[in-house]
Each structure stands twice: as C-alpha cells, then as structure tokens.
C-alpha cells in the first residue's frame, strides 16, 4: 500500500482493532519504512510485545500491510519542567 493511502487510515478505529485486538494500555501506532524495500509499514510500539499476540500483517482494503511490533515502549511525557 502506498504511503499516502496508509496515512489516511492509521487513526481509524478498525485499523487499531485489527492491530491491537483486545490490548489495553499505552501504545504508539505509526508509519515507518521497511529498511530493505523502503515500503511503508505500520509500526506498533508497546511496553511488552510478548504480552499478547500481535499480527505481523493486517489486510487493508484487500492489501496486506506489514506490522512491525516493537517492545520496550515507554509512554512519552511533555518535555517541560514538571509533570
């Protein structure tokens, strides 16, 4: 799937349901780039990727979109003085 099409989909509830299933907790879902093919991929970041099964790809409008799942995610904080 091309980048522009994927950008229009990434904040949709159905996409988040497909990637996250019943996961509850902080996360980040965005678009990265495959190192070899340079194709856009979905990048899911969660604190513990082994906590549940996440898909390695999802089907969007009949096209397969790879999902790269990264562990060790720490929720960001506003970088001012005091939280």
């Amino acid at each position, binding site marked *: 799937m091309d980048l522009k099409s994927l950008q229009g989909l990434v904040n949709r509830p159905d996409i988040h349901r497909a990637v996250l299933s019943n996961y509850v907790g902080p996360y980040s879902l965005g678009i990265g780039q495959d190192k070899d093919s340079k194709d856009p991929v979905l990048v899911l970041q969660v604190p513990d990727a082994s906590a549940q099964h996440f898909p390695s790809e999802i089907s969007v409008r009949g096209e397969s979109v790879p999902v790269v799942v990264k562990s060790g995610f*720490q929720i960001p904080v506003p970088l001012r003085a005091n939280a």
Partner: protein
Amino acid sequence: MTYAKASGIALSEAVEKVRNAASVLFDADPSIRSVGVGEVESGFGFVAVRNARAPVPYSAKMGKAIPDKLDGIPVQFIISQADPSSLARVPHSGPASPGVGSLIPEQQQQRPLVCGLQIQNYDNDVRTGEIAKGYIIIGTLGCFVKLSSSAIAILSNNHVVAGENGGVKGSDRILQPGAATFTPSMNVATLTDFVQLNPSPVGASIAAGTVVLNDVDAGVAAISVGTNYSQSYLSPRTAVPPAGVGVATTGDKVHKVGRTTGLTFGTITQISVVVGPIAYAPGGCWFQNTFVIEGENGTTFSDHGDSGSAIVRADGLVVGLLYAGNGTQTYACPIDSVLSGLTCTLI
C-alpha cells in the same frame, strides 16, 4: 557518595565498550540508574550510579552477580540517594538554578531573541504555586511567527507558554530566561493564543472510538514592543536556522536547538503516529499525526526543557514542534497543523 578505587584504561577503549557495559549492568542490578565512562585512578573505566534507596524486588537481588570488571575494564560504583529527576522543573535559586555555571548558552539571557532560548510563563508559575515551592517551569522558544494581527510572536508549546490550558491570554508574561521574581528586563512577550489540549476519559481507546485526538500542543506569545528578535540561532550553533516550512518524511535528517540539550541531530523514524495517553494536567491526552525522531548514533535528541524546540530539516525547512519524549524517542507535531491551529505563518 562513595567511590570504589580501581585502575583504568584508555578513554577510547572504554567509550567503545560502554554500551555493552550498560546493558550488562542494568540487567544485573535494577538499582543502577546510569552507566558511563569516567576517570578512575590511572585512566578511565565504567562508572555506574546506583540509587541506594531504589526499591528492588527480592527476586532481583537474588539474581545475577554484579561484575567489578567488564572486558577487563574496571567498573566503579557511585552510590546516590535518589533517582535522576526532571531537568526542566528547576529550582529558581541556588547552584542548580538556570544559568548558573551552565554550558548551554540558551539558558542565559540573550538579546536579540533567537530560536532555542529558555523561556518561562512567569504568571502561570505564580498562579500554580510553583514559585512558592521553589521552582520555575521552563521550556524552549521554538521559532518566530506572524499572527493574523500581523504581530510577531514566539512559537512554543501550550504546556510551555500557556500552562496546559491554564494560561491567561493577553495577560500572562513570558520571561527569557525566567526567574522567581518578575524582572522587567526579562519580560519579552505576552501569551496571545494556544490550541486547547483535550484529554480523553480514563480507559478510552481508539478501537472503541472513545479517544479524543489532539493534533498539536502549541501556543504563541506576541513579542513586546522594543524587543529585538532574529529567526536564527546563537552564534556557536552551526546548524541551518529555520527558513520556511516543510512536511516530515521518514528518513529525513533533522536538528533542533533546545534549552537543555542544545544543538542535536536525529532522523525521523516514524510519521502519522497515534500515541497516548500522555500525561498532562487536564488529563491523559492522545495525539495523531505526530512524528518520531531518534538521535543520531544512539545519542539523546532531547530531554526535559527542550519542549517547544522547532524541528528543522537539514535544508532549513521547519517540519515540526517538539512536545514530548521518552528518553529514546522524541515526539513532534507537524508544523502545518501548528500554524493552521494558531492562524499564523512562519516568518
């Protein structure tokens, strides 16, 4: 603090191996908070700072042995009584107060105003009691914009110039660099506008359609009459200053100048990111269309106090406004959303 004596080795050797050392030491001892390279008796070695008061699970204490040498390089332990804390909620007086002995020139009072300088919403700090507690809240002046009124303004985050929705438009005074008492010579701008931060209910999820998505964390403060400014950096900074706006793309090489880490370089690794919930005073906030930057060669791109920095591409185009981070990744909102949200243009 206590120091363990050890013999040392060449600096270059220690620097080359510190990442592996950090991995081993953090894994072996959950009370370790930092690992670096430092001077030991006759050379250099690894220096690990351990928080003696850190609560450590009993199971962790029974785990791996703590090495006193790694790859033949000595490990020196420093005992601390606390964790590292936020660098941008700073005491307003004393040795750790802004500007005292700092190596970052952006923390000093600088005129004309330039991008990257330390700023404070003084009135919000009074209102929220921060000054009474002995602190001031500071962030970074991102860049300069022209408002719909044609006034020239400082662009930064809502949480820097507008107190996370608590700022009073047309009244709150912005100081550069910031102080515990109002200092007229530091008053450079007045809070003019900000984009409201909208929290989501606890437990909200995008999958359930219950999240309120924010586009930006941004605010502007009109520069005071007679205050000179320049869309540039302080002279020691050799990076290309802001000159135009662009769109962030994965792989873009970018830089920023911020109040805490100064000039840093990184790469945009993700775009169109949805992230949350991020802790703000009004509540947990989710953001969409955010992009992520990671520092070059594993370096830190940003830290507390750098909020508000303009993210600038290597060709000088501003692509975003830094607002959050987690130590490894820096989060920025796209500049076109910032400018449209505040009805302003980059000068």
